[in-house]
């Protein structure tokens, strides 16, 4: 027992990373199950069991593989591998900016996979996903910049515990980040690239040509990503984890309500919207931090 404890202490970042790799998809799946139940309740339905995402993935893994070519499978695997890398780097307390880049490339792998097949729906979905990235990526970078301006480092492990919660210093960035989460979870009104609801328009967009185990790989990646996003939300109130969890829960509820209250809108609307309101929110928050730090804006 003591030997085990000593091992854990000595290899703390690695143990944390390994644990995160196992726990993250479970949390993600539970969140997704909860999401589907809550959505059903909002619509006056009963909804599926909480463990439905697990059932789905187990079923998908059991299906016979079919594909269009080899390339798309390579990209599905990279999509998952890079998202796992994001989880590992977060758990090891690595550089936030690098984590952001790796996260972006996980998404680019999915986009490239969708583009590698000669399927019109898949291509359209991919292009819309690129537009989504163009819409939210600058806001994520600004968020990370804001964190640097507060703590003077990108390295998560050097961020001091305690102190003033991030939410107090980055309230507007937090609001903009909520919109980013909405895009990332493919929720209305931003679910343009692949949607549970758009059967007729783009069928299933970017993931249409993935099926069976390959679709399962993408779904698992989505679970990791869901978990990562709400972990980041919780970190906005890091000094008290309970408050952080409450914050994440509120954000989660907000996403579901927004999804059910909105219709899907067009891609260009999304880009225009994201580059105006959330962008202005994020930029003004960052500008305020610069001014507070006493630097000039020039």
């Amino acid at each position, binding site marked *: 027992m003591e030997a085990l404890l000593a091992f854990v202490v000595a290899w703390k970042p690695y143990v944390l990373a390994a644990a995160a790799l196992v726990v993250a998809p479970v949390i993600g799946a539970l969140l997704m199950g909860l999401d589907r139940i809550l959505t059903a309740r909002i619509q006056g339905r009963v909804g599926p069991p909480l463990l439905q995402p697990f059932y789905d993935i187990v079923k998908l893994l059991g299906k016979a*593989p*079919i*594909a*269009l*070519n*080899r*390339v798309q*499978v*390579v990209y*599905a*695997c*990279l999509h*998952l*591998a*890079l998202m*796992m*890398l994001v989880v*590992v780097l977060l758990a*090891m307390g*690595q*550089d936030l*900016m*690098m984590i952001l*880049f*790796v996260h*972006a*490339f996980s998404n*680019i792998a999915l*986009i*490239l996979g969708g*583009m*590698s*097949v*000669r*399927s*019109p729906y*898949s*291509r*359209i979905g*991919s*292009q819309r996903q*690129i537009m989504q*990235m*163009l819409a939210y*990526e*600058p806001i994520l*970078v600004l968020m990370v*910049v804001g964190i*640097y301006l507060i703590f003077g480092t990108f*390295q998560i492990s050097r961020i001091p515990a305690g102190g003033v919660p991030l939410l107090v210093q980055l309230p507007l960035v937090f609001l903009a980040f909520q919109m980013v989460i909405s895009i990332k979870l493919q929720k209305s009104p931003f679910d343009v690239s692949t949607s549970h609801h758009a059967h007729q328009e783009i*069928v299933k967009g970017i993931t249409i*040509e993935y099926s069976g*185990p*390959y679709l399962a790989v993408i779904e698992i990646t989505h679970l990791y990503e869901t978990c990562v996003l709400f972990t980041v939300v919780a970190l906005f109130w890091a000094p008290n984890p309970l408050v952080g969890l409450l914050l994440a829960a509120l954000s989660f509820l907000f996403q579901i309500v927004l999804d059910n209250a909105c219709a899907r809108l067009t891609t260009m609307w999304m880009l225009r919207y994201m580059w105006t309101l959330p962008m202005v929110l994020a*930029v003004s928050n*960052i500008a305020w931090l*610069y001014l507070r730090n006493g*630097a000039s*804006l*020039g």
Partner: protein
Amino acid sequence: MPTLLIVAPILFGILAWLSPTAPLRTLWVVLGGALTCAAGILTALRGAAEFTLPRWSDNLAYGIEIAVIAVIFAISFRLKDWRIGLLAVAQMVMAALERLLPHAALPPAATFVIDPLSIILILVISVVGSVIVLYAIGYMRKHEEHAPDTAAPTGRFFLFLVGFLGAMNGLVMANDLRWLSIFWEITTICSFMLIGHDGTDEARANARRALLINMFGGTAMILGGLLCAVQGNGNSLAHMMSAQALIPIALLCLAAFTKSAQMPFQSWLLGAMVAPTPVSALLHSATMVKAGSYLVLRLAPAYQGTRLSEIIAVAGAFTFAATSALAISQSNAKKVLAYSTIANLGLIVACAGLNTPLAYSAAVLILAFHAVSKGLLFLCVGAIEQKIGSRDIEDMGGIMYRMPITAMIALLGMVAMLAPPFGMLLSKWMAIEAAIFSPLVLFLIVMGSAMTVLFWAKWIGRIQTVSYHERYDAERLPASMFAALIILGAGVILTGILAFPLIPMTEGLVRGAYAGLALPEASFKALRTAGTFAAWPIFLFVGLGLLGAFFAVRRFSAAVIRPPYLCGENVGGTDVSYSFRSLMDKPDTAWSKSLYLKPVFSEDKITFWANLIACMIILTMFGMIGAL
């Protein structure tokens, strides 16, 4: 050795020009390339050095300068372009003035200096440049077959192509301003000749534009030298930098902007793509544009902490963002590459302007990585263009099957431009970290990076679009083109793997560059911590992903393959088919064009305003240092 670096390419270029038969010419070109490459590597291994030419060489330099300007004047006469002629006359007058005016007595400076920055440039020029020359041998043999009748002889082409390397090597070693401007003008002449090689109306017009814009830059440079001498600050870069003569430095930076095609001077580089592809590759990766970014970087410590530095950072970052946006709307592969080059040069200039050790290191790394990747990409596009007869990105679907090796290498080059663990991404990361206290620059870099991803992803998506095939057969390429692709491809992989350890290695270079300034030790610390980033998880997980993919596709057979979903209307039933039954049962191909966002990002919407803003930034630059 430095003499060899300059003289060997020029000499072998002349030999190639004079040789009567093609095999003999090939021999001279190969020898010249090999010798330049070897000399470059040897020089790099020897390390820093200084060379001072004897007194009489001043007269020699003066003579050469006048001769070079006279050549340009003659060209302007033939082109009947009074603007170029006027600039040539102005240059000649200023050169003469500088010669006649009394000089302040300063300790003599070395004529040529080889320091770590020069060594990196020499390596890029000699190695990447020689590989491109090697590629050109095979390319030009094919090009001759379908070149227009107006094209110049191939011998002349190789004279300027190989000679270019010599001029560039001289440029990055020159410390004496006169030698600097000599080599500067020679590169201008070389690029003019190479761009106009095909002799078509378009080629002539674009060559003339390149000459005009670069002559403008050259005039700014000579004016800078003259002012420096008049102010009594000597006639070498070292003197100018130690005197911190801001106005001459700003003029030199302006010259650098024209050479590295920064906005609003970008049009010449976009026009330069009418030339045969090896020329584009050379101009974009190893030579020419790198001269500009080199000069800005070389001068960076001299304007550290001044307003000039801030403005240069803004100008570079603005070019980066604006050209990245412009690249989105382009479907011409070479034009996308051209805009991407300008964007990356903008990033280098922005880093030079940020002027911290971290930014300086990022700039040097971008310069090196960009040279290798972009050279490779141009070579690939050239090979693809010769095969499919088009340089439109939309036509490049399916080349993965038709020319798998070239397509894979092109893919490698593109991935190296944006993805981890390759160096470009790493340097961009350092640039963002360095820009963190300059909000405007930071914002422009962030927006530019997002748009960069957009146009690369589109292109990669198009290139790798492929139907299922049981097996792929390697295409046939001329041996020299093939060798060049393989060498640069290997270079990209190598720099990708070594990118992380390379960062701390630049510390010596950066310390050397900022030796004259008392920078706080903490600013160097950032450089060291950037290098300690745990790189192994990245390699581990990318490796795991590829391994998983390998096992997944290992047992792929035709039985696994299904046609795409086309609402069940696929032609040919269960066969793998990409057509669907359209109206009246006619087969039709499902096709979706890439996203170009023309209504937002098209050239005619953006270029004018972006040029206007860029002009204002440059005017502000001179206004701020009190030159206006």
